């Protein structure tokens, strides 16, 4: 039996009962469509989360005070710690270490008020976090030295206070009641979730120490942001930072009273979580594909029974088991292949739709249909067709010609 003829015959036989074939295909269409859409949405979520983590900066390490649960009386991180990390002799892999103070504060301007995070930073923080200003300027070395009462606003904060994010430089706002002059507005980054860089106020570290954040230890900071010299240096920098802090805090190895996170570790965690999410969604969608496959098996079994006499006749004129097997497998494979192709289109459409809805509701989710998802769905649906087609086809092939010809 030649291949093309088998295909023609299968098409002919399937189109002879269009409604039944269409309904059978529908099961596969929904299954494959769901798998494609779910994988695309999972991938979109992963992209947006890792994107927002990457937008924080490049090659960053975050050092915060406190170790594991059983570390008692952790020493706070201090400005001196940060300075030690900045020493290129001790920590050659560290490009820059920036101490930070953060606290939530009430902000007022005229009648407007809002509450947001205030970060006390040193000069150079803008480079570390890849921040830039749309107007005015960032905190400078003079501002730090002079403990100047100046502030840089995130664009969202500016909008909250002034109703606009332009032309606000030179205005005076009050942070926890104390007047600060606005010297710049940050460029919007569109970050979300993890930390919204668009809604914050940045002031000189020294000013924050003196006026906004009271610490029991002198020069204590909430976090030290460390930038490694390059992506390859991140693990080395991690090691060097830990070593310096251990010797400064006089803690033995294994009982650090500080914790270092790398940006990569955040990325890894986010990827793990979204990966599990994607597998979960895809798995549920896969179940519907399985149900579609059972639909194929069901219909093929009915078809074999209906065509028992035809099978008998074919055997009488010389069809071998293999010929009958191939005939019915071709039909079920064709059903699942067509269903798979339509399903890919459906899944693609669904993910586009989800993207449109997400954009309309301002969610940062852009589902992306990947080639491997398409390949996976195609292979899986073909496998489903073959697997669930095999049993009915085997049953047809194993019919005794005498019995089959006698069948009414």
């Amino acid at each position, binding site marked *: *039996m*030649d291949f093309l003829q088998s295909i023609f015959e299968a098409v*002919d*036989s399937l189109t002879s009962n269009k409604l039944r074939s269409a309904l059978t295909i529908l099961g596969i269409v929904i299954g494959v469509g769901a798998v494609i859409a779910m994988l695309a949405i999972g991938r979109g979520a992963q992209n947006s989360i890792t994107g927002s983590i990457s937008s924080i900066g490049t090659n960053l390490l975050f050092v915060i005070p406190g170790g594991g649960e059983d570390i008692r009386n952790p020493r706070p991180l201090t400005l001196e710690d940060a300075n030690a990390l900045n020493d290129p002799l001790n920590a050659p892999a560290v490009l820059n270490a920036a101490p930070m103070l953060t606290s939530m504060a009430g902000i007022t301007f005229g009648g407007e008020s809002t509450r947001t995070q205030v970060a006390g930073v040193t000069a150079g923080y803008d480079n570390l976090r890849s921040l830039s200003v749309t107007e005015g300027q960032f905190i400078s070395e003079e501002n730090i030295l002079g403990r100047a009462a100046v502030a840089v606003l995130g664009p969202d904060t500016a909008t909250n206070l002034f109703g606009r994010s332009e032309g606000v430089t030179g205005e005076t706002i009050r942070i926890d009641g104390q007047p600060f002059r606005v010297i710049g507005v940050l460029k919007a980054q569109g970050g979300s979730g993890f930390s919204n860089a668009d809604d914050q106020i940045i002031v000189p570290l020294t000013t924050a120490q003196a006026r906004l954040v009271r610490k029991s230890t002198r020069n204590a900071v909430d976090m030290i942001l460390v930038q490694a010299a390059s992506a390859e240096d991140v693990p080395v920098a991690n090691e060097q930072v830990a070593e310096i802090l251990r010797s400064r805090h006089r803690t033995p190895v294994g009982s650090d009273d500080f914790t270092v996170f790398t940006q990569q570790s955040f990325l890894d965690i986010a990827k793990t979580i979204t990966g599990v999410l994607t597998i979960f969604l895809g798995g549920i969608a896969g179940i519907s594909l399985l149900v579609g496959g059972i639909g194929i098996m069901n219909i093929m079994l009915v078809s074999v029974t209906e065509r028992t006499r035809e099978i008998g006749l*074919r055997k*009488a*004129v010389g*069809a*071998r088991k293999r010929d009958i097997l191939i005939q019915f497998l071709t039909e079920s494979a064709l059903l699942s292949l067509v269903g798979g192709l339509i399903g890919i289109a459906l899944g693609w459409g669904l993910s586009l739709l989800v993207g449109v809805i997400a954009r309309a509701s301002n969610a940062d989710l852009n589902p992306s249909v990947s080639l491997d998802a398409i390949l996976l769905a195609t292979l899986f649906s073909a496998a489903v067709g073959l697997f669930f087609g095999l049993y009915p086809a085997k049953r047809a092939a194993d019919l005794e010609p005498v019995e089959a*010809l006698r069948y009414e």
Partner: protein
Amino acid sequence: MADEWVIDAEGLTKVYQMGEIEVHALRGASLRVRRGEVVSIMGPSGSGKSTLMNLLGCLDHPTEGSYRLDGELVSDLRDDQLAAIRNRKVGFVFQSFNLLGRQTALTNVELPMRYAGMKTGRRQRATEALESVGLGDRLTHRPMELSGGQQQRVAIARALVNTPAIILADEPTGNLDSKSGEEIMRILLDLNRERGTTLVFVTHDPTIASRTQRIIRLHDGLVVQDGLPEPAAAGG
């Protein structure tokens, strides 16, 4: 000369297991048919007629006994080998035609050639076969567009297209009116006369049997009579 016999069956038995009961459909039937002969197998229902035809058509294995078809010992062959024998050496004409309903006359006739693995020239040979049964103008008609007699002629074209050693006709006129039935008989007998095709009719219709050269009568799974037809024979 052994080659003279196209059918050479010796002591064929067939036992079916029907639940607890063993049914002895054939109890040692022996028969021989010469090349080019026209014979009919007759017998009342339950005589083992259908079972014998299934064995002669290589549709089934005998429980015991040997069967040579066209010089080949086929009684011990496996299923797929039997399929190949049916394909090359046996042409079937059934009472209910058994055509593929959605296929044209041409594709129906091509079917045995496709299973024979023939790639080219199928259409040509199918056309010739259909012309030889007088359906040259009905090539692309589907079975439901044809009369019963025409459908049976398509079936005959299908049976002869692989030039088989025998054509087995199981009540070939049973579903036809007398005029179409007569036409089918004439076509089959012409085939025998012109091409020397061996014909085996399985029937209980005495008028068909009377037109064959030899009648083999079965009773209770045994050949009870093998001889010339008697016009006066009352049939099965």
